[in-house]
């Protein structure tokens, strides 16, 4: 038997439940679970599903904070449940679906809204002409990489959307991760699509609606700092807008 510091601790999990076939509105259900000292929130949820209530629905996958599947609101804060230790909490732990998203069932939210915003910023390398294979690979210096690498670390976990006060109130806003990823490509030396993306950044989903609350960066589990990206993107969009009056556009 493995030795572990600390003892088992009984905690009450107040979990949001919602079955669209049965419930008008979401409600909560409490489960008392004897938790191991090294457990994360996800371990408790899996225990509930495996041993107590098989009807509980929740997303998870890698258990190591790289897939972005297990985002939920724990005691009001957006967290990756696989990475959030129960030792940080007391006797009662509230687990709710990720804020600001439509709820499909229990702790599972509708992701397609994010996928739409994500695709809208064209998150891929855009070049005027495709490079022929004989011309060789793209060369990129460490300095080139450093310009965008941080923003490429996004795992699309959407915790930032759950934290953002603008996302809570404005449905068109592109949101932290989508803007950060668009900006990631604008800063990529291989990319030539900044003009297109900046037009989207100035469009209905406007990056300028970000009010720099910085909540997104506070909750990001991968150190992406989307607030930095969004506010860098504002400057990029303005410079692009100004230069459109001076330089002839390709489109």
């Amino acid at each position, binding site marked *: 038997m493995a030795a572990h510091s600390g003892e088992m601790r009984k905690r009450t999990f107040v979990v*949001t439940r*919602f079955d*669209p076939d049965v*419930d008008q*509105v*979401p409600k*909560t259900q409490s489960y008392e679970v004897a938790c191991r000292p090294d457990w994360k929130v996800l371990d408790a949820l899996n225990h509930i599903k495996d041993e107590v209530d098989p009807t509980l629905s929740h997303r998870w996958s890698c258990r190591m904070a790289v897939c972005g599947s297990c985002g939920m*609101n724990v005691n*009001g804060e957006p967290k990756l449940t696989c990475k959030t230790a129960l030792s940080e909490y007391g006797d009662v732990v*509230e687990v*709710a679906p990720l*804020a*600001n*998203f*439509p*709820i*499909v*069932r229990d702790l599972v*939210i*509708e992701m*397609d*809204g*994010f*996928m*739409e915003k994500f695709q809208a910023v064209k998150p891929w390398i855009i070049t005027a002409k495709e490079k022929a294979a004989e011309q060789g690979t793209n060369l990129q210096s460490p300095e080139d990489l*450093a*310009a*965008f690498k941080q923003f490429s670390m996004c795992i699309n976990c959407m915790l930032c*959307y759950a934290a953002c*006060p603008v*996302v*809570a*109130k*404005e*449905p068109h806003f592109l*949101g932290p991760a989508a803007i950060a990823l668009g900006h990631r490509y604008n*800063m990529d030396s291989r990319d030539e699509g900044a003009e297109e993306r900046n037009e989207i950044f100035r469009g209905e989903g406007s990056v300028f609606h970000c*009010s*720099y*609350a*910085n*909540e997104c960066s*506070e909750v990001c589990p991968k150190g992406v*700092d989307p*607030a*930095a990206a969004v*506010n*860098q993107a*504002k*400057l*990029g969009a303005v*410079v692009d807008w100004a230069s459109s009056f001076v330089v002839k556009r390709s489109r």
Partner: protein
Amino acid sequence: MARPSHPEAMTPHRPGSTRTAPPQVPDDFWTRRRMLTYLLFDATGLPYMLVGLVALRVAFALGRGPEAWASLMEQFSHPIYVALHLLALVSVLFVGVRFFRLFPKAQPAKLGPAKPPPAPVIVIGLYGAWIGLTLALLVVLGGIWP
């Protein structure tokens, strides 16, 4: 337990095949300390605007002559103006500290050929300029020189 977000927050244009519950935020979403600090930051917009409008009065008074000026300075000694200017002072300091903290990371790694200085240099520059400009203006407006 929860309060509603915008009813269409993060809602896809093509709905899924099952009925979803509307998006929500935790009860304390708007009242958590970090969020309140940010809302306070935005709220400093009011003292800033009022100070700007009061400065407009100052400019007009200077244009009208000594009597108008004396009258305005006398008004400024009333509690309501003193309170406004004190509140504005606290607001400006609060804004400055938060803004200077958040400003460096908002500079892209490169903008064309231009590259920003390292973040610590930017912060020192910002505070240096703040202190320098404040001292210079204090000297002038405070009667020391000219």
